[in-house]
């Protein structure tokens, strides 16, 4: 075979096979003794142990250690029995749709950013922080998926609920009318449902008990409320019953029932809520002391006016909330720092920038000649009388003089002259001509009746404590529906709370109340959620009179409030005048052995 032949395919040479002889060639000796050598030798295999360990394992399977894990288990949901629906009204409440579930043909609402619960800054435990982070957005809970709400809350209310839910210590200080009650009830509802709290104590002023019951029924109808009432034995039993989820009581009963109990006998609560918590502003009062002794895991305060007179009042609330040590006196800077963490305060301007504004204007008026004369006589005589009282003078004496002077600024009792009335009539001409409506507030029913006789041409109606309860509702209805009724005269005491008069565009404060918070409540009857037009508020202040001096004192006190709770807060606060400030309205001096000395308590 020629392997170099290019035309032929390359072929390998055939293997050469040599034949081997298979016989074992053994030469036998001549003696013939080695015949056995012709046999095949015997060959076997034996196992032998190695003398040393081998240095390499040829096969290898990877093993990875499992990562460590952390577990959080959530408490079981607590179910409350739903009350039976009461007719059509209840059915309507249940027809609310959750967000995003619009039916066809319905205009699509802009998507709202879900409200998430954030853990509070002072919460350090990782498990606790994750508990809040992993909660669903509030809208999922409250918009029909799990809990039925009668009305959809506003965004700021969702935020308030989420904030309260996570807080162990909280002071909700929203301006009046923004729904502190509803936010609190909903947060309590969520805490109870999620098993975070099982026993809640709600404390409020006695007149507000029916209000809380009504609001609970509206916003959390499935929650059973037990009011602390009855004789001592029944109340004792109620205090000891741990199965009551929500116990509603007032400050007086609480102080009376618990003040004599030893610490170990005190009923324990998961949450204590104080409505109008300025009631414990005095640390040394029995009520404050008793409330602070109640064992509790969460402490919430509700008030639109956390400071009434002095910043120390806020310290008392912080002490109840457990964020300052007992008897401590934080300075303004420290209070401000604590307020940033533990106080949530929103004003109408902040939460409803689109709400028509409230325009305040002070009408500075000069007294009419007859008023001026009457005022001067009353003031000089009054001061002389007070000075003569010397050290026997009391706040009551000074009050009497202040009231007399304030009444003269409203009108002169002898001649009936009144610069305020003149101004009111001029303004009302315009208001009635434009078809608008106005509310006027005064602290005296006598003044209201006097004004009624002089303003009948505007279809004036009267609403004060002297009007029988049965007649009150029809009066409000007439004022709302009668196009010829332009003026409603109200007293602060009767008309300041609980009425919705947002169809009124004008509010007159005929005289000044001691406490701007009350004035605000009155104004808020007209300037509240749902108002469509700006509300013009006119405060009548007679120049160079007691009214102007009171206004000055109240202005100074507002500044303290702003320093603690922020300058952006434009709302009025409860800054009622204390005894020293009432005395300070006059330069009172008693005769002393050498000249004169000032009379009255020293300012705080």
């Amino acid at each position, binding site marked *: 075979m020629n392997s170099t032949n290019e035309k032929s395919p390359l072929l390998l040479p055939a293997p050469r096979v040599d034949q081997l002889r298979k016989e074992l060639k053994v030469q036998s000796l001549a003696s013939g003794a080695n015949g056995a050598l012709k046999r095949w030798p015997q060959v076997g295999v034996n196992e032998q142990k190695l003398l040393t360990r081998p240095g390499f394992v040829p096969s290898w399977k990877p093993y990875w250690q499992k*990562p460590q894990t*952390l577990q959080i288990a*959530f408490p079981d949901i607590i179910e409350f029995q739903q009350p039976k629906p009461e007719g059509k009204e209840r059915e309507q409440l249940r027809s609310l749709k959750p967000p995003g579930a619009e039916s066809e043909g319905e205009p699509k609402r802009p998507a709202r950013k879900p409200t998430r619960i954030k853990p509070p800054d002072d919460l350090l435990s990782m498990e606790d922080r994750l508990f809040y982070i992993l909660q*669903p957005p509030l809208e999922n809970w409250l918009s029909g998926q799990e809990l039925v709400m009668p009305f959809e809350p506003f965004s700021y209310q969702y935020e308030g609920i989420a904030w309260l839910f996570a807080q162990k210590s909280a002071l909700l200080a929203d301006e009046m009318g923004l729904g502190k009650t509803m936010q609190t009830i909903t947060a309590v509802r969520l805490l109870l449902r999620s098993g975070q709290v099982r026993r809640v104590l709600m404390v409020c002023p006695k007149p507000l008990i029916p209000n809380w019951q009504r609001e609970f029924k509206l916003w959390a109808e499935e929650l059973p409320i037990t009011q602390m009432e009855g004789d001592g034995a029944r109340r004792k039993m109620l205090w000891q019953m741990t199965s009551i989820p929500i116990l509603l009581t007032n400050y007086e009963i609480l102080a009376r029932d618990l003040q004599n109990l030893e610490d170990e006998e005190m009923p324990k609560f998961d949450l204590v809520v104080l409505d109008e918590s300025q009631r414990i502003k005095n640390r040394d009062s029995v009520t404050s002391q008793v409330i602070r002794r109640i064992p509790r895991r969460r402490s919430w305060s509700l008030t639109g006016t956390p400071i009434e007179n002095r910043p120390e009042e806020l310290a008392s609330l912080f002490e109840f909330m457990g964020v300052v040590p007992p008897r401590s006196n934080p300075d303004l800077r420290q209070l401000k720092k604590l307020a940033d963490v533990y106080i949530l305060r929103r004003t109408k301007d902040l939460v409803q920038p689109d709400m028509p504004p409230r325009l305040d204007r002070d009408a500075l008026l000069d007294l009419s000649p007859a008023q001026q004369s009457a005022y001067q006589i009353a003031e000089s005589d009054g001061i002389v009388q007070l000075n003569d009282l010397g050290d026997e003078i009391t706040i009551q004496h000074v009050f009497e003089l202040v009231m007399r002077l304030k009444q003269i600024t409203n009108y002169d009792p002898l001649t009936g002259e009144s610069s305020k009335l003149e101004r009111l009539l001029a303004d009302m001409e315009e208001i009635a001509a434009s078809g608008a409506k106005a509310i006027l507030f005064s602290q005296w029913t006598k003044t209201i009746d006097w004004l009624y006789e002089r303003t009948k041409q505007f279809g004036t109606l009267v609403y004060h404590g002297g009007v029988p309860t049965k007649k009150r509702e029809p009066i409000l209805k007439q004022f709302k529906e009668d196009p010829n009724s332009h003026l409603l005269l109200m007293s602060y005491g009767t008309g300041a709370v609980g009425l919705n008069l947002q169809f009124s565009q004008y509010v007159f404060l005929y005289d000044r109340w001691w406490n701007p918070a009350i004035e605000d409540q009155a104004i808020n009857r007209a300037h509240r959620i749902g108002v469509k037009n700006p509300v013009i508020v006119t405060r009548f202040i007679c120049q160079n009179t007691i009214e102007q001096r009171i206004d000055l004192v109240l202005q100074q006190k507002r500044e303290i409030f702003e320093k603690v709770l922020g300058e952006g807060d434009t709302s009025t606060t409860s800054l009622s005048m204390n005894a020293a400030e009432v005395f300070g309205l006059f330069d009172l001096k008693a005769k002393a052995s050498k000249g004169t000395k000032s009379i009255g308590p020293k300012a705080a």
Partner: protein
Amino acid sequence: MADSKKRPPCVLGFYQTVARPSGEICGGVLITSHLGRPIEFQCSLPIRPNATQQTLYGTTLMPFIKGELIAEALYDKLSAKPDILFVTDPDCVAEGIWGEIGVVCFAEFPNGQEQQITRNEKGFVTANHLVAFQKMQPKLKEYLPESASLQEPLVRVEQALDEAMGQAA
């Protein structure tokens, strides 16, 4: 007032991982009721793939770390096993780790079939998980609210993991 101890009609799982620029990875699974209420949360401590793992697994390192190593540790520790699991990262979908539980991924991935999960959400399911998913589909329709977002709880898990990693650092 009574504690509701019974298992909800539909138990949902949400598995999410987060990675740090430093290379540490941790994962968490949130178990919720059909209404999104949390029942249980398990999260792993942050782990960093070692050099051997990086060499051995190469481009499949992340599916191994997220889909197997962390997922298996979490699954073993869960007291309440979910009926269905939702993820956003295809690397978290590992065959075999989640047993008979259907896994739905909200991001597209190879071999995944697109499925309608709720009225507004679609997801991808692998062939291996398809039977389990189809078994659960009628329950999802029956019990999930129309407006439910199944991606929202994954955001919660991510935030919880950020918080946990922040505290662990």
